[in-house]
């Protein structure tokens, strides 16, 4: 069977969901324009293809927004690009943790480390902290221990 079906995209519905997330983030001065949302969804397709994953339903981006909108390190100037990078990092580490973490657990770990260990440095988050955390998860370290460690 042709594998084209794996490039699932709900287009318009996802676009409106993403723009609707402004209602919560705008309290923190963060909004996405239609063009921003379109670019994020385009990048989503690319990263899913790169990471060889298929996504169903409303997707991960609204969940990323709800987890990160109150970050001290995200402002309107870097909002769109930070979301694009965070979704890249998210799918990479869904694979690197062998799907052993739920979406919520991985997002929470990313947020904790982004805020309190990396102080908003996305490269450090991806290349150092999450790489170590993923190694620990693969070696069988329980998720709760990682979170406790990152709270120190």
């Amino acid at each position, binding site marked *: *069977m042709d*594998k*084209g*079906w*794996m490039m*699932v995209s709900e287009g318009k519905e996802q676009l409106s969901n993403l723009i609707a997330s402004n209602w919560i983030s705008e309290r923190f001065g963060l909004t996405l324009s239609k063009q921003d949302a379109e670019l994020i969804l385009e990048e989503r397709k690319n990263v*899913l293809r790169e990471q*060889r*994953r*298929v*996504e*169903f*339903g*409303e*997707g*991960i981006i609204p*969940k990323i927004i709800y987890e990160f909108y109150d970050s001290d390190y995200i402002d309107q100037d870097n909002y769109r690009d930070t979301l694009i990078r965070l979704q890249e990092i998210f*799918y990479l580490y*869904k*694979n690197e943790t062998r*799907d052993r973490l*739920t*979406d*919520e657990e991985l997002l929470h770990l990313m947020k904790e480390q982004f805020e309190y260990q990396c102080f908003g440095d996305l490269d450090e988050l991806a290349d150092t902290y999450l790489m170590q955390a993923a190694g620990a998860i693969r070696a069988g370290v329980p998720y709760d221990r990682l979170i406790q460690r990152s709270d120190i």
Partner: protein
Amino acid sequence: MDEQMDALVKIVGKLAGKYTAGESTSVTYEKAEQLMEAVLYCIREAEETG
């Protein structure tokens, strides 16, 4: 995507939701392929016995 394929993908999406217990919005290509094969197998069986 034609209507038939659209319907198949929706079923695979529902199965993926059950497989991840609703805790992941995405699965690997390999898992998605296995789920699609399971759906196609059931359809073939139903056609043959139906």
